[in-house]
């Protein structure tokens, strides 16, 4: 159905081809998963199927791509629209009209289908995707999962034979992701649609794939095979595969169910080792002893401490016992209560994962802590101050938030300029205020960048960094002010496993230095790796708050794969298991 014949793509101005010698075929009616680390050209391969590469993006495509017998060299994307449906990473960028029903019809209108055919297909698609109740709704009012389903529906109505999806679930909470994947599976099974999809979160999708096409590293040839064959050699793999490799299971299990069946022996072995709670606080649920003294430091120690150009982030000495205290916080938006009587106390050195559906109020809570959202009722105290009344310059030394789109934080042209800008407000504050309360010595941010991201050139434009590097740069910029409380909103979106592992390392060492970290995330594996405590939000209310192991294991959608495999034992991550077995 899709055939790549020795394809290489070179973008204008690039010295090297982005992908080289890609040669594979996707048979009709199969779901093929395109996997690989960031930056290997997955999106380029997907774009070549719909003809957007190179017709829209520019660049040179060598070799030949044919879809349903049509050569993309001679067919423009619009002439492939009836055989290929493409959904990009951001569904919002995809919508042309403003209501669900019109959006579903748009593609068919362009193709000139008869009115009665259009009406019938719209109704079928509404049912197929479970969108019937939303048909008249303006798209802007839908949740992330609903928008993603509308985006898929809008390319389904012309009955394409091929569906191309770029990261369809990365922005979705676990339940919404399953919803979307169930739809895809139904399309493959019932309609015989051919699906080619790229996704970083393999743990969500690998079990649905008939075949996996792996791009192991930039420029390396593409490997195509059954999921278990490919996973045995892949540099990117989900936790279930990691556990399978650790336990030496062959063939590798790909689903939790397969792994559970074989896990009897492993469970017995683990039974005999130390229970996870005894030595690892992450699973044990004991809140760590605060590594920084809770009593205020002697003022005399502060300045000496801070004048030194220590590259490691040093906490604000005036920080009170709790970096953040939220009490009965209610936030109203129009008639809707985004948060209802939420209480949360953050202790120093603690990592908290905020989880819950899209739109449950996670970002609002982070926004309230960072002073971006004004409480309608209740109190928020961050480092003893009321965040939304504190001047931004003062607030950055108490709390730092890395938003969902880290790029928003960066506006300079080079990494060096970005760092200089990050140090500036603090330096200025010190020169004007006389007594240095805290301050980033010039170079603090740059030292942080070198520590977190070795090998980044000063002259690099932030836009040219990879997703993970940009996140780290934003993190360094925020850390330059040494806030005792660090907030991260959905930090792993678009990160591959390697970048995620680096982020986990960075955040762990920050927590060990006494930073409190609150992260809002859909990524259950990340929460399992990092969090001491998990707070579940639903509909603006806290519905669970407790040690990570307890909260996460009790919930089927928020349990990480290892917990599901090894239940009822409370193991959360492969790292823990590896340590216990060693």
């Amino acid at each position, binding site marked *: 159905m899709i055939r790549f014949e020795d394809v290489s793509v070179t973008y204008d101005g690039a010295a090297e081809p982005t992908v080289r010698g890609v040669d594979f075929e996707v048979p009709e009616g199969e779901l093929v998963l395109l996997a690989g680390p960031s930056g290997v050209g997955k999106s380029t391969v997907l774009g070549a199927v719909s003809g957007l590469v190179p017709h829209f993006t520019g660049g040179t495509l060598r070799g030949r791509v044919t879809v349903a017998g049509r050569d993309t060299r001679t067919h423009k994307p619009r002439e492939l629209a009836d055989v290929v449906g493409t959904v990009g990473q951001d569904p919002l960028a995809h919508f042309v009209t403003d209501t669900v029903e019109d959006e579903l019809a748009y593609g068919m209108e362009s193709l000139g289908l008869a009115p009665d055919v259009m009406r019938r297909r719209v109704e079928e698609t509404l049912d197929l995707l479970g969108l019937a109740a939303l048909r008249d709704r303006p798209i802007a009012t839908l949740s*992330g999962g609903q928008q993603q389903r509308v985006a898929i529906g809008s390319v389904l109505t012309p009955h394409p034979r091929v569906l191309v999806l770029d990261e369809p679930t990365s922005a979705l909470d676990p339940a919404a992701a399953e919803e979307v994947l169930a739809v895809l599976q139904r399309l493959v099974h019932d309609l015989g649609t051919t699906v080619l999809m790229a996704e970083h979160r393999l743990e969500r999708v690998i079990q649905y794939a008939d075949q996996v096409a792996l791009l192991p590293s930039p420029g390396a040839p593409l490997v195509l095979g059954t999921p278990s064959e490919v996973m045995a050699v892949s540099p990117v793999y989900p936790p279930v595969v990691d556990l399978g490799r650790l336990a030496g299971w062959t063939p590798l299990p790909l689903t939790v169910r397969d792994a559970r069946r074989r896990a009897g022996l492993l469970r017995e072995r683990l039974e005999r080792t130390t229970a996870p709670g005894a030595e690892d606080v992450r699973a044990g649920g004991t809140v760590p002893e605060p590594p920084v003294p809770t009593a205020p430091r002697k003022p005399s120690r502060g300045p000496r401490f801070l004048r030194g150009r220590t590259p490691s982030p040093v906490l604000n000495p005036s920080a009170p016992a709790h970096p953040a205290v939220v009490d009965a916080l209610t936030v109203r938006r129009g008639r809707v209560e985004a948060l209802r009587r939420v209480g949360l106390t953050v202790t120093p050195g603690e990592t908290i994962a905020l989880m819950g559906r899209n739109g449950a109020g996670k970002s609002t809570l982070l926004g309230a802590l960072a002073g971006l959202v004004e409480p309608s009722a209740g109190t928020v105290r961050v480092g003893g101050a009321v965040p939304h009344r504190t001047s931004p310059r003062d607030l950055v030394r108490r709390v730092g938030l890395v938003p969902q789109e880290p790029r928003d934080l960066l506006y300079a042209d080079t990494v060096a300029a970005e760092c200089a800008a990050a140090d500036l407000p603090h330096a200025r504050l010190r020169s004007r205020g006389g007594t240095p309360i805290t301050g980033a010595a010039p170079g603090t941010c740059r030292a942080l960048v070198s520590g977190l991201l070795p090998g980044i050139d000063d002259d690099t434009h932030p836009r040219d960094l990879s997703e993970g590097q940009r996140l780290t740069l934003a993190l360094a910029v925020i850390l330059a002010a040494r806030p005792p409380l660090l907030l991260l909103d959905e930090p792993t979106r678009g990160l591959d496993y390697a970048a995620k592992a680096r982020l986990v390392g960075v955040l762990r060492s920050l927590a060990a230095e006494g930073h409190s970290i609150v992260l809002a995330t859909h990524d259950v594996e990340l929460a399992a790796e990092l969090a001491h405590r998990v707070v579940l939000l639903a509909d603006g209310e806290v519905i669970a708050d407790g040690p990570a192991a307890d909260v996460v294991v009790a919930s089927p959608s928020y349990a990480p794969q290892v917990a599901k495999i090894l239940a009822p034992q409370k193991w959360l991550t492969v790292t823990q298991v590896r340590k216990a077995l060693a």
Partner: protein
Amino acid sequence: MRTRAIQTGTMRTGTLHPGAWWVWALGLGTAASRTTNPLLLTLLVVVAGYVVATHRTDAPWSRSYTAFVKLALAVLLLRVAFAVVLGSPVPGSHTIVTLPELPLPHWAQGVRVGGRVTAEGLVFAVYDGLKLAALLVCVGAANALANPARLLKSLPAALYEVGVAVVVAMTFAPHLVADVQRLRAARRLRGRPDRGLRGLAQVVLPVLEGALERSVALAAAMDARGYGRSAEVAPAVRRTTAGLTLGGLLGVCAGTYGVLTAEGGGYGLPVLFAGLAVALAGLWLGGRRSPRTRYRPDAWGPRAWLVSASGVAVAALLVVAAEYEPSALHPGVVPLTAPTLPLWPMAAILLGLLPAFTVPAPLKGALTAPPPPTPEEQA
């Protein structure tokens, strides 16, 4: 054909044609422009407001009504403020207060800042401002009741591209606002003040960058979904289309020149109209190159006739009334007289309530939507 289309469900019959709402609202607006009687104007605003209250949905475009009402109030206040500060062209004898007058140089003769504020001047300003405000409220009502995008879908096929451009622009505006909010929040997170001109200026560039990126992404999505596909047409047809369009436009240019210059008084108008007709024929023929079809266009049913007729009736009756009873529709300012409520114009305005009783109210349950997620939550 139409009946069959309605029976097979390929036309939208459940909702009122958006054009009907616009005709109704513009009718009320025309009526408002014909009178300065504050009682009649207030009645018009109440009528429009009542219909909006009963018939608007919770869609984003419906929320613009509040913005229009606020704008109308601002216009009214501004008009009165100008009358107070800059004086009024209406002579008056009832001085309310005398403001200190700003001495101006002789070349600014005729301009006055401060000075006497008369009751007549104020009343005149209020009447005048109220007229503008009522007009704005009527336009706001149309916006709240009819989806503007749906209205553009009713354009003829040849103007389809224009419609798409406008719809895309309209969906872009809220995105831009969200971007500005997000980037200002990000500035705050960097420890920079998020208020003030400088704060805004530094946000402009990234916002424009984001808008550009989004439009490129949208263009890619539209291309991949078949936008701009063209059907095979005979070369002869293509050539004729080009000839007609070009010739028509030339004709329009020549005609306009003729109309505007003194010499061409005789041939100007006919050439202009002929050019227009030829250009339209070219557009129509050009529309055949596009294979597009239309999904569920709105049907113009009996209700649409009723609603638009009620608007037209209000306008027509007030135009007639302005001829016959000018004193009742334009209450005197000099000398000051209390406005009266003329019976017949009042009854005519009440005709505008017809849609409130003939059009079924939208199902609140089905259309009640939570407000859009905040920019931070959207992803």
